[in-house]
C-alpha cells in the first residue's frame, strides 16, 4: 500500500471518528488542536486503524500513556530530558522537533498529527 493510499484511508477514518470535514484533514493536522479529538477519540482511532488496516496495536504503542501521570517523566510542568528520550524511543513515528523547543506537558497532545498516524501505519504494515 502506498503512502498516499494509507493517508486516504486514515483521512476517511478520521472523518468518521471525529465528525470533521474531509477538506480539513491534511498531513499537518493535529488531532487535538485542529481536529478536536478528545481522550476517548484516541481509543476510537486505535480501534478503527486496527480494523481498517488489519493491524494489532498495543496499548500505548500509537499514543503514549499520559506522561503527566508518570512522575519521572515530568518536572515543573515540562517533560524532562529523560522523559523526552523515552518518548522518542517509544514513538518513532512522531516528529518531536517543534515540541523539543517547548516540552510543556500541556503540548503533548499536539505531537499527534495525521502524519504521525500515517507514519505509524506505514511502519506497522512494513513489518506485518
Amino acid at each position, binding site marked *: 500500500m502506498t503512502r498516499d493510499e494509507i493517508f486516504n484511508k486514515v483521512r476517511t477514518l478520521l472523518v468518521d471518528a471525529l465528525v470533521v470535514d474531509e477538506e480539513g484533514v491534511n498531513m499537518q493536522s493535529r488531532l487535538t488542536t485542529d481536529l478536536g479529538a478528545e481522550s*476517548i477519540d484516541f*481509543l476510537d482511532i*486505535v*480501534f*478503527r486503524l486496527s*480494523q481498517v488496516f488489519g493491524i494489532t496495536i498495543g*496499548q500505548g504503542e500509537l499514543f503514549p500513556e499520559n506522561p503527566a*501521570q508518570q512522575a519521572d517523566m515530568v518536572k515543573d510542568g515540562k517533560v524532562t530530558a529523560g522523559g523526552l528520550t523515552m518518548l522518542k524511543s517509544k514513538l518513532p513515528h512522531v516528529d518531536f522537533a517543534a515540541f523539543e523547543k517547548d516540552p510543556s506537558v500541556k503540548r503533548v497532545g499536539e505531537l499527534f498529527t495525521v502524519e504521525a498516524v500515517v507514519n505509524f501505519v506505514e511502519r506497522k504494515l512494513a513489518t506485518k
Partner: protein
Amino acid sequence: MRWMWIDRIVELVPRERLVAVKNVSMAEEHLHDHFEAKGKRAAMPIMPACFILEGMAQTAGILVGHAEEFREKVILAKVGKAELHREAVPGNVLRYTATIQHMDKSGASTAGVVELLDPMKGWSAETIGTIDLMFSHIDQNMSGEEFPEHNFVFSESFRTLLRTSGVR
C-alpha cells in the same frame, strides 16, 4: 423505577453478538410526559430516542462485559453513530442486536441494529435504526484514577436480567 431499558436477553453468542428485547408499555411513567396533551393537541406517547439509545448501550454493554466474565467495569465512552427513523409506541417490542466490531484490553466497539416489532403488523420486524457505540474498560484506561473495587456497572438488576434470561 429501575434504570433497566431491556427486558430480556434472547440470544447470546459470547464475544460476538447479543440480542435483547424491550416491551414498550403504557405503564411507563415517561410515556405520559413524552408527549403529554397540550392545548388542542392530544397526548402522544412515544418512546424517547435517548432511552432507545440506552437500551442499545445496555445490550452492547452486557455483551462486552460478558466477554471478560464481568471482571471489567464497562463504561459507555462514545456514541459513534445513532440513527432512528421511526418512533416506537406502547404495544411495540424493540429488538436490539449488538455485534462486537473490535475488542481488546482497553475496551470494545460495537455495531447495533434496532428493530421494531408491531402487533398491528403481525409482529413483523422492521429495522428502524442503527447505533454504533464504544466502550471503555475504565480500570485499563484511567490509570491513576481510583474506582470502587466492586463492579458497580453490573448491578443486582443486571444480574437478575442475566439469570432470568438463562445467561451464565
